[in-house]
């Protein structure tokens, strides 16, 4: 129902509001209201989930905090809008949120016809399958005729259909929008299989399964799912800010700068570090931010490695392809200069 409300509201906003993008930049609007409005998952451990004290935690949440640190020098100036897979795009299109940081896959259609820009990749993922161990299934190729639980409006839903078609198999989808409800259906045995990105499977198994050892993640990874933050078309400045905040997180790890040591290392004579902390050059000004934007990001939130270790490692995630390019992974930031 909320989807409908948001979609209807979006229609009305699009219908009634004079073109706001032209009137005021997102950065000016964010500064005026004093916080970044960030769309996150309703609850996916390691990516975005409220902890026992109601504080949002996860790498998607940390990205929003990093943007707030870059803009305001205060990582706490973020407000969160928890969104289901179906609500997320209308919320961003209508201007209800400033950034969508909600394990969202970068695809051509979303980048073009939905009116969005993807500001990079925060986690390289791929789609997998989880089954109860007692079924004795060892491979996704043996899933012919299975009932599969999946959330609607995701790339997952499309990859699933593609994979079964390509392998000449059939399946019955059970499509439920709310993560809680779809997981209930899977754990109650309504489905044989739950499918989403492998990161999601690992997180769900660790945080939601009554007994994690009862569930097996099958070896096949059937798709590429680069997950990243998303902004609206039409505001290049804001797009640059989010993009370079993400790159700053990666660059800091590569330079060996962390929340613990950046104060001491700020005095370093290395030209890269000098530029990074804003002691030389004026990259910050070019982005429309203060010159200590990247310093604040690392000081207040940490580097990418710290985010990964704090949020994903405890759940059993491996760095794998999400390691820095210097260590054999895919994480690579263009030079900040």
């Amino acid at each position: 129902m909320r989807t409908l409300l948001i979609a209807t509201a979006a229609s009305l906003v699009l219908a009634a509001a004079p073109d706001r993008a032209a009137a005021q930049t997102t950065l000016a609007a964010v500064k005026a209201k004093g916080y970044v409005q960030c769309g996150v998952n309703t609850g996916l451990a390691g990516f975005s989930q409220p902890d026992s004290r109601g504080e949002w935690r996860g790498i998607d949440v940390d990205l929003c905090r990093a943007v707030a640190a870059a803009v305001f020098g205060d990582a706490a100036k973020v407000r969160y809008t928890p969104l289901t897979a179906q609500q997320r795009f209308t919320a961003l299109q209508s201007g209800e949120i400033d950034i969508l940081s909600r394990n969202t896959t970068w695809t051509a259609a979303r980048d073009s016809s939905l009116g969005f820009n993807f500001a990079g990749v925060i986690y390289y993922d791929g789609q997998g399958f989880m089954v109860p161990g007692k079924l004795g299934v060892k491979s996704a190729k043996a899933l012919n005729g299975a009932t599969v639980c999946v959330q609607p409006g995701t790339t997952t839903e499309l990859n699933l259909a593609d994979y079964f078609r390509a392998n000449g198999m059939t399946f019955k989808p059970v499509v439920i929008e709310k993560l809680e409800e779809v997981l209930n259906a899977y754990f109650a045995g309504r489905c044989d299989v739950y499918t989403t990105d492998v990161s999601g499977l690992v997180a769900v198994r660790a945080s939601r399964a009554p007994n994690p050892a009862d569930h097996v993640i099958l070896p096949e990874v059937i798709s590429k799912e680069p997950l990243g933050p998303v902004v609206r078309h039409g505001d290049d400045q804001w797009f640059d800010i989010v993009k370079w905040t993400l790159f700053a997180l990666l660059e800091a790890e590569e330079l060996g700068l962390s929340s613990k040591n950046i104060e001491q290392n700020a005095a370093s004579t290395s030209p890269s570090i000098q530029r990074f902390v804003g002691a030389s050059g004026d990259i910050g000004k070019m982005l429309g931010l203060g010159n200590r934007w990247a310093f604040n990001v690392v000081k207040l939130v940490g580097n990418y490695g710290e985010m990964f270790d704090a949020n994903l490692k405890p759940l059993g995630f491996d760095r794998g392809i999400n390691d820095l390019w210097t260590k054999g992974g895919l994480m690579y930031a263009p030079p900040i200069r």
Partner: protein
Amino acid sequence: MRLSTGDPRLRAAAYQAAALAAVILLGWYLVSNTLANLEARRIASGFAFLGREAGFEIGETSLIAYGAADTYLRALAVGLANTFRVALIGIVAATALGALIGLARLSRNWLVAKLAAAYVEFVRNVPLLVQLFFWYAVITENLPGPREAVEPLPGVFLANRGIFFPVPAWSAVHGWMLAATALGAGAALAHARWARRRQARTGRRPPVLAGAAALLVLPPALAWLAGGAPTRFSVPALAGFNFAGGAHLSPEFAALTAGLIVYTASFIAEIVRAGVLAIDRGQFEAAYALGLRRGLAMRLVVLPQALRAIVPPVTSQYLNLIKNSSLAVAIGYPDLVSIANTTINQTGQAIEGIAIIMAVYLTISLVISALMNWYNARIALKER
């Protein structure tokens, strides 16, 4: 004729023209501004996406064949068919159950009346969405998996994948049996009409029930025997992950239909009760004085009059049921709204998607209103 601003007719016409112009202008502003904003944000618009490949599967496609390679338009048609399936079964069953409960609440039997009252008060005061979750949980959480399915009758299986039951394997003979049944039903109606005329003429009512039963049962039975009495059944059997063969009701369909029927029936029950109570007690007494028993007095004298009070509010309950069926989204039944939501999300074209949903519900509701208004006019008091 002299035109002047003092002429009240002219003034009225001018005001109306101005109001109409304002409405049209507002509509034009909304549409053009929407298009301009969509263009500025480079969000795709238009209905071209309907012809593109949908790419997702749908769980229930019993009425229209569908695969992931079909178009969005076909996917939406499957959703609409699923909405109709629930609405049709829901309306018929809710009417029957509602009428039964409503009459039960008027019963002279204390226990029956109180049970019916408790049903109505409980069911209509709990939100429908909660009831849907309840029914869905009852089915998926309490029933075992397909490999440990309960078999209450031979060939009938209850599992958290739904209800599986055997159906006769289709053959040409079944077509003949259907035709024979239709023929028998026609004959039974003609027989009943003959009996009614005979009663009007002679005052004696010839027995109808036995003849009607025979006319309904015998022709299909004869067709079946003539066709060689095929007895092959398609029986559900465990194959791989799930049952194959037989017929099947999914938990989502069962939960949604059960929820809608039980909920709407409680409102219909109150409408039926109110309709009957609206008829003067004197009508009952007059019917008793003519020697009719309570059941006959109800059926022949009171209910036909009560219908006039019942039909209009029941119409709105039918409309409510259809609109409430969109709550299917919550429990994963692929109705129109669910498919349209997925379509909106895959294509990003929210305005078009919402417009389709609104247009379809509006059309369905207007058609049902028109039908019920026609029926209401037919049974309304004929004033001569």
